[in-house]
């Protein structure tokens, strides 16, 4: 297996301090300029293998979506490199990026916001085809769109309708069709089922899995729904406060979690017939990504934290079973 996408040491920080005037502060009788930066993604290194589904899980605000958007070049990373099939893509101009736009596509979370309400489904789906293949005739574009619409389970006869005339599940199918219509190899799916009804979630998941089988797609699947992740993914990366704390195959991660945060996260999955209250309770809240904790980002809530965890940022280590963990405790054999 070869890596289709490599993320190397990527940081993404957002400046939220506003305009120059907003940045000025008076403290101790002096005028200072102070910037407030949200450190959404810090030092992330990940490989996505061709043909697999890599799921990224974590609670809200941990930087999962930012990671996906940085990969898709909706944001430029502040540091680090992103390589697609060995070619660096994070510093390309938008013109040089264009060929990669047909190979990498994205499916968004909210099917109500991700389709332009003033365009018909046909316009939405034809636009990317025409844009990337200006040579195609009208009939060829039409056929292409009809084919993809059939594949995602939306009757091509409905193409002249507007998005608001469809249900949430159908819209998400259209949104998936928009990604598939340029024949991509890689799709970043940013919580594609989070906004859907539970009964529709399964349909959309099956659609994504069928498309993967037929087209040999690779997914970067962002989710916070752990049972979905267990079902769909080959490997899982667990994120906490902008850092990857554990990366393992789905089977390994769910049966044998190493990182204390993963253990706490998995224990929070509700189980049928399980006893109430046997999950690991973490104390406190997630710290703000504006002032990251020193050392391990999880040390303030970790039951196993010691003095080293507060001081030193843990590096990712590969264990014997292939799991990658960033934890001093696991490294020292304490956990």
């Amino acid at each position, binding site marked *: 297996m070869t890596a289709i996408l490599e993320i190397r040491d990527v940081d993404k920080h957002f400046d939220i301090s506003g*305009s120059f005037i907003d940045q000025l502060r008076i403290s101790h009788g002096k005028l200072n300029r102070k910037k407030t930066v949200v450190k959404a993604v810090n030092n992330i290194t990940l490989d996505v293998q061709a043909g697999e589904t890599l799921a990224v899980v974590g609670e809200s605000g941990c930087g999962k979506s930012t990671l996906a958007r940085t990969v898709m070049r909706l944001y430029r990373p502040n540091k680090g490199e992103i390589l697609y099939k060995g070619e660096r893509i994070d510093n390309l101009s938008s013109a040089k990026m264009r060929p990669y736009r047909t190979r990498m596509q994205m499916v968004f979370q909210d099917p109500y*916001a991700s389709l332009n309400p*003033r365009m018909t489904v046909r316009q939405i789906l034809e636009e990317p085809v025409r*844009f*990337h293949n200006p040579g195609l005739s009208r009939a060829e574009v039409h056929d292409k769109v009809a084919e993809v619409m059939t594949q995602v389970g939306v009757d091509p006869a409905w193409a*002249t309708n507007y998005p608001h005339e469809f249900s949430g599940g159908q819209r998400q199918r259209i949104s998936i069709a928009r990604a598939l219509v340029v024949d991509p190899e890689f799709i970043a799916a940013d919580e594609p089922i989070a906004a859907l009804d539970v009964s529709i979630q399964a349909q959309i998941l099956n659609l994504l899995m069928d498309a993967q089988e037929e087209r040999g797609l690779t997914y970067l699947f962002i989710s916070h729904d752990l049972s979905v992740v267990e079902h769909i993914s080959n490997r899982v990366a667990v994120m906490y406060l902008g850092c990857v704390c554990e990366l393992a195959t789905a089977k390994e991660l769910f049966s044998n979690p190493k990182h204390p945060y993963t253990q706490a996260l998995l224990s929070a999955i509700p189980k049928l017939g399980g006893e109430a209250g046997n999950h690991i309770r973490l104390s406190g809240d997630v710290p703000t990504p504006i002032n990251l904790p020193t050392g391990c980002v999880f040390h303030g809530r970790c039951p196993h934290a010691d003095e080293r965890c507060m001081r030193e940022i843990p590096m990712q280590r590969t264990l014997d079973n292939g799991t990658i963990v960033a934890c001093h405790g696991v490294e020292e054999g304490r956990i």
Partner: protein
Amino acid sequence: MRSRWQRFKDSYMLHSFLNDRVALTCFIILAVLMFSAFAAPIIAPHDPYNSSTIDIMDAQAPPSWSHDGDSEFLLGTDAQGRDMLSTMLYGMRVSIIIGIGAVCLQAFLGIVVGLLSGYVKRLDNVLMRIADVQLSFSTYMVAIFIGAIVQTAFGVAGYEKVAVPLIIVIIGLAEWPQYARTVRASVLAERKKEYVEAARVIGLSKTRIMWRHILPNTLSPVLVISTVQVANAIMSEAALSFLGLGMPVTKPSLGSLITAGFEYIFSGSWWITIFPGILLVTLILVINLLGDWVRDFLNPKLYKG
């Protein structure tokens, strides 16, 4: 599958319009006024622009139904002997052309500036400060200033020729920030939505995203302010003409007709001022009421008590 016309026929918009008696009445009145204004050369009984047909001896004839009215002049004549009805129709045409022209210019400038400042962050501060400066000049001050300069530069005869485009430019330049601010506010809301990100993931250029994806979604507030702005522009023009800086008396608009008659109102010739006044008020009122309907229709969340 359905044609555009069928969609329109079945639309909620048409249904709501046909069931709103005020809107429907206003629309009919506006349509009649617009038609009679633009068909003035055909339907008006006299041609007020053709000085050979005007006889000074007819001056200040009262409306035909009054004691010594002339049946040839239904609403009487003004101080130069022009038929009031015909002059008002021609004048309304001038007023409407200026109103719509000025709004087109305002909308064009305002939409371009609003889109750019909403979507391109670097330009936002500069463009919005320019808009603030523009707003801090009153329309009339700008108009009086430019109007006075042009009148001196071209002389009275030359001014007649450039009057219409000049007033359009003056009112258009004075009021574009209204549009720019409205469009910018909607663009700021729209650009965060995922369909814009989807368009960026497709690789579309900024210009294309701005014009093809964001702009159509910001047009409903633009439509609402457009109706109000047409009424405002017609009123601004009338006010300018009343001050003597708008349309010349030889090619009067409704505003300059009101001014022209104002001198004679105390000598008993009330009709020269009152009829154009009533027409102006009716025109503005129906446009504003239609604008209200458009606003209520496009923004149903607005509480209508």
